């Protein structure tokens, strides 16, 4: 899309899960890129394929049933899909770290938290166990947990504290890219804000790029430079955050905006996008959104819409609504 040197460039990625009821097209011909230092919001409903994409980047798609069937994942110019398991192991955690969705289950219940952080340090640095444990305590302090609690087990921490530990693990080796998979979805609203702020601050300190997976556009507005909207395994819109918020191009994005609860209005009901996510084992032809799309025309069920640049850096996969802006010069 751009000529600038990219940190991450995913090209035509397809990841399928073969299950009894058929083949789940979790990720289907997905394109996505990220420049160094950039902060990307990765948005979509549950089941869109966000986690699977992230696992694809990490080389951790569970196989069986999952398999990367097509595409390239270029990281710093090299295709991660061509790397050996051993090469991937040094990238995982070292260069690309991931924070998983549910902090309650992400930590090993029978190992103290300092050891769980130190494990990461030991794997990617040439240090002694003692130094690694020392670094673990530093990391705990960095995420706002007292050193004295280093020897505690995960069950002794609250959900928000656990997620802080998870963040400490992820950032322990100063990764180039951090993937956060809905890091606050499982937390209380008040804790959410604290954890997000912490991530924001640390990210700047360590200077890592971020892919923030979320279904909360509010988080995107606060934290991200760019946004990719994912629907049924594909990126349907990709834009600088401001452009997306000012003039969303794809009808699905429009629908997402309409479904944000408006705190000022008295309206109780959310305007949720009509219809359900399509069956991932049997995706609709053409534009996969057409059964739910209020603007659909006949051609929509036939041709797969290509991504078109409607203004600089703003791509939309909808020929009907995603027309280049005539008022661009304004």
């Amino acid at each position, binding site marked *: 899309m751009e000529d600038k040197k990219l940190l991450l460039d995913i090209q035509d990625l397809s990841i399928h899960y073969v299950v009894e009821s058929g083949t789940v097209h979790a990720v289907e011909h997905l394109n996505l890129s990220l420049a160094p230092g950039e902060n990307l919001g990765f948005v979509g409903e549950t089941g869109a394929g966000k986690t699977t994409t992230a696992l694809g980047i990490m080389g951790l798609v569970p196989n069986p049933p999952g398999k990367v069937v097509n595409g390239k994942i270029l990281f710093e110019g090299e295709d991660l899909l061509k790397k050996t398991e051993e090469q991937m192991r040094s990238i995982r955690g070292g260069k690309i770290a991931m924070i998983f969705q549910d902090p309650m289950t992400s930590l090993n219940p029978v*190992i103290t938290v300092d050891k769980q952080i130190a494990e990461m340090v030991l794997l990617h640095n040439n240090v002694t166990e003692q130094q690694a444990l020392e670094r673990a305590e530093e990391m705990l302090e960095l995420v706002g947990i007292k050193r004295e609690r280093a020897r505690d087990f995960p069950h002794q921490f609250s959900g928000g504290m656990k997620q802080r530990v998870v963040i400490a693990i992820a950032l322990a080796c100063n990764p180039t890219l951090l993937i956060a998979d809905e890091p606050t979805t499982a937390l209380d609203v008040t804790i959410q804000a604290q954890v997000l702020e912490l991530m924001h601050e640390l990210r700047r300190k360590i200077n890592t790029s971020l892919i923030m997976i979320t279904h909360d556009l509010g988080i995107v507005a606060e934290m991200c430079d760019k946004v990719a909207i994912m629907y049924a395994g594909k990126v349907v819109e990709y834009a600088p955050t401001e452009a997306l918020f000012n003039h969303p191009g794809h009808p699905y994005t429009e629908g997402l905006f309409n479904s944000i609860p408006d705190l000022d209005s008295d309206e109780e009901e959310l305007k949720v996008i009509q219809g359900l996510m399509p069956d991932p084992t049997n995706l609709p032809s053409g534009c996969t959104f057409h059964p739910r799309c209020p603007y659909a025309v006949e051609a929509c069920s036939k041709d797969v819409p290509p991504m078109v640049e409607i203004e600089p850096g703003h791509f939309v996969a909808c020929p009907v609504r995603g027309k280049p802006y005539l008022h661009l010069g304004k």
Partner: protein
Amino acid sequence: MFKYIARRILFLLPVLVGVSFIVFSLLYITPGDPARMVLGDQATEEAVQEFRNKEGLNDPFLVQYGRYVYKAIQGDIGRSYMTRRPVSDEILSAFPSTIKLAALSMVIAILLGIPFGIISAIRQYSLFDSVTMIFAMVGLSMPVFWLGILLILFFSVQLRWLPSSGFDSLAAMILPSITLAAQSVAIVTRMTRSSMLEVVRQDYIRTARAKGQKESVVIWRHALGNALIPVVTVVGLQFGHLLGGAVLTESIFSIPGVGRLMVEAIKMRDYPLVQGGVLYIAIAFSLVNLLVDLVYAWVDPRIKAQYK
């Protein structure tokens, strides 16, 4: 922790009172006169009455029970009607064979069951897994006496490698231990496998992989520690069970263990011996349970926290 152990052991007392009361009642209402059994059909009615008076068998139920408890508190649980030896001596002489047999079988179950379960889980659906699971199913469904007799026929009668009875040499212990272990091996294998399959799907295993950890370390360090927690329970229950005496195995191989002693005592209406045996089993089972809970607390910090 010590307070917890002390509390648990104290808690044993009401259990023992309850258990002895139930057994006492059961023996009281079961037909069959111990005096007749001990003295034989030829004995005169007077001799029988004299025996009953001497043993207090003609007293009302509660008097008999009260006397038993009173003496038991002082450490006297009576003498066997058959041998006239103290019940505690009888049990203590049968106990070593039983505990040896139980321990050997559990060692076999652990040494085979855990590794087979782990490998089966890691290579789910592989040939190894299928064969192991078939063996586990056979092991579970095969009657103990049938396996015992097969082993005797093959290794003792046919090959003449191992003795078919007794329990005094290591060679004599092999066949009974295998016979008794077969089911435990199967149970431990299946439990380890299913627990392992459950654990490797957990998020924290994915976290470990996301750190760039080697698969072998992920399994050994992260998965196993968690997967073995439920296995501890199963092993403990099995062991407690075996301590109560393996009646069939002891009978097939003529091992003088607690199981055989108890069956004999029940047959002969040897009330004091039955009572003592049941108390012993209750104590052994409770202590093993306590041990399991302590091991549990040791491997699982979440449980340890509750014991403070």
